[in-house]
């Protein structure tokens, strides 16, 4: 399916978003709902009840064949051979120089079948990179991004909303597990994953069934006050949960080590993988910058691109920032010089030419109640 460079794509739920009064924005080449009732209201709904998200813009790449596990171990930084069937893990695909091409979730659907979920902004790049890296292995790469819809329900009430709609036993579905079944009568993959820091589920179906699933989930959610939620709330939720966003915390110029994600770099795994040599070198040299959390202790919001100072020395830059709806204070993620990165350190943020104090804190800012 040809993708024009200039005209944005629409998800199968476009009409639903318009009917719900969503403000539509262009994101990663797609027209997506930024908000419906409002970012703060949607954020709070997800933290206290549930929100329903259209994430059909994400990339879904299926890798199948006798060498699927080995192929992905070569292409990615993690070792998917370690995954049991029905389990998933967070991973990255790196450039040969060690920088991050995308962050991903890899789901194992069978002994020889995996689904790789990529960010919408990198779906084509990941597809191309995987095609090149998998070429030498006995596997088939099936990029089903444009044929797959993704509806996510996230929040403490999620399980109660989804359970009556699905034949997947949600009680038995652990965090970072996935199962095949049906939702609202539609064949679906149901994963207990998400990007909000709350319990929740991501439901993958064929695009043609998206409206049926969306309507069923929203309808079932009404009774407990679930609301449709857009990309605006998705961003404030993941930031509170300390989760990186590609393009802000992750990019070609950052290694997983810079982002504090050495756990996804499987240097102990057997065999070569793309970026291994560069990442071994990076680990030996130590990080050039460190990702930290910030809470602004003065007045003002620290935003992407704002510079950080210790006295007169520039020591870093903000990668993401907002007023935290849950905590009621301005929070941010930032890269700082490693020697300045100790929790509790007070540094200055340049907010429109004023230096405002901020405290370095460990991530995440928010953890869901146990």
């Amino acid at each position, binding site marked *: 399916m040809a993708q024009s460079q200039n005209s944005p794509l629409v998800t199968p739920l476009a009409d639903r978003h318009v009917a719900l009064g969503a403000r539509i924005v262009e994101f990663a080449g797609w027209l997506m709902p*930024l908000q419906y009732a409002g*970012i*703060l209201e949607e954020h709070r709904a997800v933290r206290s009840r549930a929100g329903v998200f259209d994430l059909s813009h994400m990339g879904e790449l299926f890798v199948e064949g006798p060498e699927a596990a080995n192929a992905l171990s070569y292409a990615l930084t993690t070792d998917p051979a370690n995954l049991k069937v029905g389990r998933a893990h967070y991973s990255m695909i790196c450039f040969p120089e060690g920088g991050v091409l995308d962050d991903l979730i890899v789901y194992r659907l069978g002994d020889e079948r995996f689904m790789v979920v990529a960010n919408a902004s990198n779906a084509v790049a990941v597809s191309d990179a995987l095609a090149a890296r998998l070429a030498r292995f006995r596997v088939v790469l099936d990029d089903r991004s444009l044929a797959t819809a993704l509806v996510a329900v996230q929040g403490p009430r999620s399980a109660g909303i989804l359970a009556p709609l699905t034949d997947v036993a949600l009680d038995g579905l652990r965090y970072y597990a996935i199962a095949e079944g049906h939702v609202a009568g539609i064949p679906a993959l149901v994963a207990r994953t998400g990007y909000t820091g709350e319990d929740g589920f991501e439901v993958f179906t064929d695009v043609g069934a998206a409206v049926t699933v969306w309507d069923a989930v929203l309808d079932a959610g009404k009774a407990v006050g679930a609301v449709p939620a857009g990309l*605006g709330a998705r961003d*404030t939720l993941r930031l509170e949960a300390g989760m990186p966003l590609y393009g802000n915390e992750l990019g070609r110029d950052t290694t997983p080590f810079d982002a504090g994600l050495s756990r996804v770099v499987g240097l102990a795994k057997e065999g070569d993988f793309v970026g291994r040599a560069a990442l071994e070198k990076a680990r030996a040299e130590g990080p050039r910058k460190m990702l930290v959390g910030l809470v602004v202790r003065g*007045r003002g919001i620290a*935003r992407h691109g704002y510079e950080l100072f210790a006295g007169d020395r520039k020591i870093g830059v903000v990668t993401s920032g907002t*007023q935290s709806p849950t905590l009621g204070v*301005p929070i941010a993620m930032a890269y700082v010089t490693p020697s300045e990165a100790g929790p509790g350190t007070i540094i200055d943020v340049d907010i429109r030419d004023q230096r405002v104090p901020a405290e370095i804190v460990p991530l995440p800012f928010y953890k869901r109640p146990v």
Partner: protein
Amino acid sequence: MVPQDLRYTKEHEWVRIEGDLATVGITPYAAEQLGDIVFVELPDVGRTVTQFSAVGVIESVKAVSDLFAPVGGEVTETNAELAGAPELLNSDPLGRGWMLRIKVVDHAQVDRLLDQSAYEALISEA
């Protein structure tokens, strides 16, 4: 309630002139466009501002916007409620969400502002 005694800037500030005192805020249209407002920065009381200069900042979740003075003069008062309750700009931008008061130096400046019907025409074209 359609306010008839207000004048407007093209940047969506409203102003009510009572004698020498101008009360300033942002319009419901502006608040709606901005989305949830989470932070407001107002000029210091006593500061002299010039007409149409940027005198403060309104931050929504996603963006930072300047606040422009509809008239020039001395800032006599700012709304202390907004520091703790910036959401007043969304819920009551014409009432409790008033932002600052300016002592007007030149009433002729009001002629440069939009009246009700001109402002309504501006936002209906948007």
